[in-house]
C-alpha cells in the first residue's frame, strides 16, 4: 500500500518535472515556425504531414522535433527539393493526446492527402495513428516512439506502413554488448539489472544474448529492486566472480548508489548502462570520482565529431541559437529518411515509399547509419558517452 503510494507520487513528480522541462524548450522553439510550408510557387509539391505534440504534457518533445523538421524541409527545398519538387509541410498539433492524434491523422490523410506522415513523438500517440496509416496506405515515421508496439501490433504482426527513427529499448543491450566486446575487448561480464522494470530486464536479456554470441562469458547475473538502497552484499558477490565489465541497466536513482558502493568495494572495472542513467542527479548520488570509467548509450550527442552530426549541430545552432538535443536530431533524420525513400521509389505512391523505406540500407543520418529490420525496427548506430570527472564526454559511435 505504501509502496504503491510512493510509486504514484514518484510518477506524478517526474511527470511534473517533464512538464516543466517542456515549457522551457517549447517557448524557445515556438518563435520560428510557419512560412516555410507555403514556399511552393505554382509547381507540383510533395505534401508531407507532421502529426506532433505541439502542446500538452509532452510538448517539449513535439516542438523539438517540429523545429528540426522545419530546418530539414527548408534545407531540402533550398537544395531543389525531392526530384525537383518542393516539400510542402503540413503541421498538425495532436495536443499530446492519442484521440487527437487519430483525428489529426484522418485530417492529414483525407483532407490534405499527404504523401507520408512524420510523427508522433510519443509511442502512445503514434500507435493511435497506425490504423489510419494502414487503411490509407500512408507511410508514417515516428521519430522517437521507442515502444515495440508502434511498429509491431499486439498480434505480433508488423504494421506495414509504420516506421521509426529511434532505436527501441532492447537494442541498447546489443549496443552495450558490442561496445564491451569490440571496443573494451573484455571477455567476462556481470549483469546487475533492476528486476522491477521491463526496460531493464529487456536490456539485460539482449545484452546477455549478444555478449555471449560475441564469445564473451557472463560470470554473474544478479538483480535488484527499484527503491533498494543497500547493494553492497550483491556487489561483493559480483566482485568475487571477477568480471572485467559490469552492465547495469536501470534508472539513475539506484544506479547512482550502485556505482558509488561498487567503487567503495573495489570494483574498478568499467561499468555501463543505458539512457536510464542520463540525469545530472547521478553525479550527485555516485560522486564524480566513482563515475569515472563508466559509459552510457544515447541516440545522439552534440559533441559527435562525425561530419553529418557536426554540420547539423552548426546549422541548428545558426537557426535556433541553441545546441540540438536527441529529439531535434531524430526529427531531422526522419525527414531525410523519408526523402531518401521517396527518391529511391521515384514516386509518391504510399506502397512504393513503404517498400523503399523497408529497403533502406546503411543510410547516413545525423544519428548514424540507418537500416530497417523485418519488424521495422531500426538497426543503427548509437553514441557511447563516457563520464569524465562528472561530465558527459563523447566516447565513440558504435555502428551496427
Amino acid at each position, binding site marked *: 500500500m505504501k509502496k504503491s503510494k510512493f510509486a504514484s507520487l514518484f510518477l506524478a513528480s517526474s511527470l511534473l518535472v517533464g512538464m516543466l522541462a517542456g515549457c522551457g524548450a517549447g517557448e524557445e522553439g515556438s518563435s520560428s515556425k510557419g512560412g516555410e510550408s507555403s514556399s511552393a510557387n505554382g509547381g507540383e509539391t510533395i505534401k508531407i504531414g507532421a502529426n506532433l505534440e505541439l502542446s500538452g504534457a509532452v510538448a517539449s518533445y513535439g516542438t523539438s522535433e517540429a523545429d528540426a523538421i522545419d530546418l530539414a524541409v527548408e534545407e531540402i527545398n533550398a537544395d531543389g527539393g525531392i526530384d525537383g519538387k518542393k516539400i510542402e509541410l503540413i503541421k498538425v498539433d495532436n495536443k499530446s493526446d492519442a484521440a487527437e492524434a487519430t483525428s489529426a491523422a484522418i485530417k492529414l490523410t483525407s483532407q490534405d492527402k499527404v504523401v507520408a506522415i512524420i510523427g508522433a513523438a510519443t509511442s502512445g500517440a503514434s500507435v493511435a495513428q497506425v490504423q489510419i496509416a494502414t487503411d490509407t496506405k500512408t507511410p508514417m515515421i515516428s521519430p522517437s516512439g521507442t515502444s515495440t508496439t508502434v511498429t509491431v501490433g499486439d498480434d505480433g504482426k508488423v504494421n506495414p506502413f509504420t516506421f521509426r527513427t529511434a532505436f527501441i529499448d532492447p537494442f541498447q543491450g546489443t549496443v552495450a554488448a558490442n561496445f564491451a566486446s569490440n571496443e573494451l575487448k573484455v571477455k567476462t561480464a556481470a549483469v546487475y539489472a533492476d*528486476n522491477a522494470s521491463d526496460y531493464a530486464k529487456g536490456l539485460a536479456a539482449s545484452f546477455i544474448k549478444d555478449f555471449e554470441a560475441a564469445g564473451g562469458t557472463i560470470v554473474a547475473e544478479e538483480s535488484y529492486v527499484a527503491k533498494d538502497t543497500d547493494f553492497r552484499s*550483491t556487489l561483493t558477490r559480483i566482485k568475487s566472480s571477477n568480471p572485467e565489465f559490469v552492465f547495469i541497466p536501470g534508472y539513475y536513482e539506484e544506479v*547512482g548508489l550502485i556505482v558509488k558502493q561498487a567503487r*567503495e568495494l573495489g570494483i574498478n572495472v568499467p561499468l555501463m548502462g543505458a539512457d536510464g542513467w542520463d540525469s545530472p542527479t547521478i553525479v550527485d*548520488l555516485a560522486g564524480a570520482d566513482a563515475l569515472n570509467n563508466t559509459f552510457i548509450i544515447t541516440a545522439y550527442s552534440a559533441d559527435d565529431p562525425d561530419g553529418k552530426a557536426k554540420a547539423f549541430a552548426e546549422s541548428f545552432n545558426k537557426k535556433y541559437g541553441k545546441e540540438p538535443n536527441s529529439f531535434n536530431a531524430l526529427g531531422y533524420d526522419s525527414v531525410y529518411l523519408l526523402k531518401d525513400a521517396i527518391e529511391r521509389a521515384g514516386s509518391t505512391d504510399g506502397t512504393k515509399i513503404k517498400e523503399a523505406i523497408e529497403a533502406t540500407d546503411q543510410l547516413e543520418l545525423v544519428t548514424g547509419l540507418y537500416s530497417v529490420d523485418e519488424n521495422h525496427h531500426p538497426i543503427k548506430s548509437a553514441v557511447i558517452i563516457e563520464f569524465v570527472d562528472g561530465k558527459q564526454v563523447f566516447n565513440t559511435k558504435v555502428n551496427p
Partner: protein
Amino acid sequence: MEWLQQLINGISLGSIYALIALGYTMVYGIIKLINFAHGDVFMVGSFIGFYSITVFGLGFFPALILSMAACALFGVIIERIAYKRLRNATRIAALITAIGVSLLIEYGVIYIRGAQPEAYPNIFSNKSFEFLGAQISIQSVLILSVSVVLMILLQFIVHKTKTGKAMRAVSHDVEAAKLMGINVDNTISATFAIGSALAGAAGVIFGVYYTKIDPLMGVIPGLKAFVAAVLGGIGIIPGAMVGGLVLGVVETIVSALGFSLWRDAAAFIILILILIFRPSGIFGKNTREKV
C-alpha cells in the same frame, strides 16, 4: 575473502537497524506501544543532518549531535501531543494513532520540501583499506564506531543514572513506580527523547552510508527495525542490539547466496517464524500473560 567482506556489509547494515530498533524497544518496554512513527523520526533526523551539513556547513559530528538533539525534542513533542492523552485508552487506539502520526510526518515533510530525493554530501573520503582481503571503507569504520559508542552510552544511561533507574522502574510497574515518587510522565518523555535521539543518529549515519534520502525512506528501515526488536525480544535493550545485527547479517547472507530479490522477504519470514516459535524473542523470558 568474500565472507569477511559480507560480514562487514552485514554488520554495517545491522548496526543501523539496531540503532532504530532501540527506540522501538525502549518505548514498548515502558508504555507497551509500538511507535510506528519511529521510522519517520529516523527520516526527520536524516534530513536535519542533511540540511545542517549542506546549508549550515557543519561537519559530521556537529550535524550528528544537532540531529540527535532536534529528534529528541521532536520525539517528546510527538509523545506529549499524540500519545500522552491516550495513556489509559485501549492499546489499539494508541497503535492506530501511531500510524496516523507516521503518515502525518511523512506527508508533512513532502508538503514542506517535496518528494524528490536528496543526495548526502560526501563528507568522508571514499578511501578504503584492505584488511585480510576485504575492502573496508573509512566511512563504515566510523559508522560502526559511532553506533557502538552510542549503544554503550545507552547502557550507561539505563543502568547507571537516576533517569535510567526510573525508566527501568516504570517499565517494571507503572503504579508501583508512581507510589515510590517517580515522575512517570517525565520518565516516559525521557524514554522518547533518548529513543528518538538514537533514531536521529541512525538517520544521519544512514545518509552518510547510503547517500540517498527521501521523505519515505523511514518506512522500510522502520519495519525492519521493528522485526529486529521483536527478534531480540521487544522491550529488552540488549535484545534490540543483537536483533538488529542478526537481521543485518541474515539479509546480507541471503543476498550473498544469490537470492538478493528475497532479501526483504527473509526479514519478514524471520518475523513470522519468531512469532510462531518464540514470540518473546531471543532474549525474552516466557512469561504467561494474566488475563
